[in-house]
């Protein structure tokens, strides 16, 4: 415990010294005056290098410069208040209230730690805010996924990630992805990114990632295309023609277009985006749905049903 306090004490003292100085502090200034630097010169050097990295990882920008550009002085360091200080533009009490409620949506969820420190910062701005009025409507983020924080970090930094993903047959596949976006929809989180082995855009559901997500240290490793193409009907290569009993099959109807209907059945056309999903959705609907075309889909439905029949004989 004691060593922990010593280190954070030194880091805070270093921050104060670099923030308060009007001129650049050289390493020897720092070693002479800042509390906590001691031992052989090489040891202090190493300590200082680590400390700089640590402060940078906290998002503190340390500027390197010299006193006088005309002389080749030893370079020095400082932190400018402008880069250190929070700047969210002009905010009033209502803005703070909305932001605070937004942060509290993470209670018990993946970014709780980040949102806690964000809340502390908002509360430190010294503005009165009225959260009571809106707190009734405070939303909750669903998702406690351990990988959530690493993935958001990777999306923001544009860093490549690696993980194991579970396929339809439960086999695990190693994936290396350039993550483009993260989106929450219908209670699940979806990661869209370029699969770096297959060179294709892929969508992944976070709860199907079965390993820890490894994030590369290298930032800005790729460019994100301006338009990330959506997987939608325009891209479907093939359409299926199916019959759904009237007033049934709402899940399938939402992605299909009505072609024709009679008293008992509606005939619908729907894009085949994911053949395995479609097969399962058709089986789910039992005798309320049947396939007319294409022959291949019709065959796999019949084969699956015969397989089920044999197993339950």
């Amino acid at each position, binding site marked *: 415990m004691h060593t922990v306090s010593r280190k954070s004490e030194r880091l*805070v003292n270093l921050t104060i010294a670099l923030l308060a100085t009007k001129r650049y502090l050289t390493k020897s200034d720092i070693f002479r005056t800042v509390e906590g630097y001691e031992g052989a010169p090489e040891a202090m050097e190493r300590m200082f290098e680590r400390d700089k990295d640590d402060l940078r990882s906290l998002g503190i920008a340390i500027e390197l410069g010299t006193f006088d550009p005309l002389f080749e002085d030893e370079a020095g360091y400082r932190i400018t208040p402008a880069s250190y200080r929070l700047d969210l533009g002009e905010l009033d009490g209502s803005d703070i209230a909305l932001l605070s409620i937004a942060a509290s949506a993470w209670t018990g969820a993946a970014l709780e730690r980040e949102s806690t420190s964000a809340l502390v910062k908002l*509360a430190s701005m010294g503005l009165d805010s009225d959260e009571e009025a809106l707190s009734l*409507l405070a*939303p909750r983020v669903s998702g406690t996924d351990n990988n959530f924080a690493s993935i958001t970090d990777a999306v923001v930094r544009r860093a490549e990630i690696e993980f194991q993903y579970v396929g339809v047959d439960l086999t695990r596949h190693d994936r290396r992805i350039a993550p483009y976006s993260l989106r929450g929809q219908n209670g699940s989180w979806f990661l869209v990114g370029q699969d770096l082995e297959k060179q294709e855009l892929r969508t992944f559901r976070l709860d199907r990632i079965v390993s820890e997500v490894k994030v590369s240290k290298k930032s800005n490793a790729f460019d994100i295309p301006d338009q990330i193409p959506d997987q939608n009907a325009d891209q479907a290569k093939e359409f299926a023609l199916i019959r759904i009993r009237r007033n049934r099959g709402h899940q399938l109807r939402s992605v299909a277009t009505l072609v024709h209907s009679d008293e008992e059945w509606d005939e619908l056309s729907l894009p085949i985006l994911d053949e395995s999903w479609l097969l399962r959705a058709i089986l789910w609907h039992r005798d*309320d749905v049947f396939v007319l075309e294409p022959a291949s889909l019709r065959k796999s439905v019949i084969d699956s049903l015969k397989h089920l029949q044999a197993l339950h004989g």
Partner: protein
Amino acid sequence: MVNSPTTPLAQTARLLDLVPFLLSHQGISISDLAAHFKVEKDVITDDLNTLWMCGLPGYTPLELIDLAFDSGYVTIRNAAPLAYVRTMSSSEIVSLALGLDLLRDSLLNLGNEQVSRIDRLSQRLRSQIGAHISIASGTQTAHRSMIATSIARRVPVEMTYYSSTTDQETRRIVTAYDFFQENDVEYFQAYCHTSNGMRTFRVDRIVTASVAQESQEIVNDKKQKSERIRVGATVRSLDRTSAEAFRLAFEELEVGASVALEAFSSDWLVRAIMAGAGSLVVEEPSEIRQLVRRSIDSAIALYE
């Protein structure tokens, strides 16, 4: 509780954030302070003891941060260099931006002023990180806030609700009592005025929701018992669809293993077994196995 608050870096971040927080909350109690930072009281006391040793080079009483907290209440002086509220990290900004996405949906029912304020804030935050991270502007949170309003004010809500079990949409008037969560899915308990009894609904299955016009009476509180159906099955092949439907752990499944399956309705169970395409075989009880078999037969009949 927040992860590992005692690593040197986590502590440093907290110490830097403590100063502006204390400056705007002079006289706060140590326990309130710990609650704001979501750490234990002795962690924050340790922080205060450490911060008390920090200051400008020289480190005489003139340069050190002046903290008093012996009484259990904290005051701070002489902390000018650290008085600035520190800039936010990108993950802090992401947490706010995503929270705003959800809040925006919750407020859609309430009017435009807050929504346009949220849009302005959200745009400002997103311009600082420049990343595509969002929550789909869905109807789900709007529905949730409608149910929250029903809980808070005991007002009846008229909703169209989709039941995947019967594969039908029904119109119901409900007064909600409470939310609860099971396996990451959010449900609510409500009195259903349409069927005169307590029912359980999934928030994500609401298709439309609005405040009901007529006032409703709650007739009798006869609770319907929902019996779980338990079924013994054999794993025939490894299949993600089946594993997810029955919430079986991916890593524990193997071919040939016997598994216990649970469902609230036999109808749902039969559908899930069929959608599994032969990855799970129902062994017992025999009534359910026959139910599955009949369902398969009538689906095959469509192709004959």
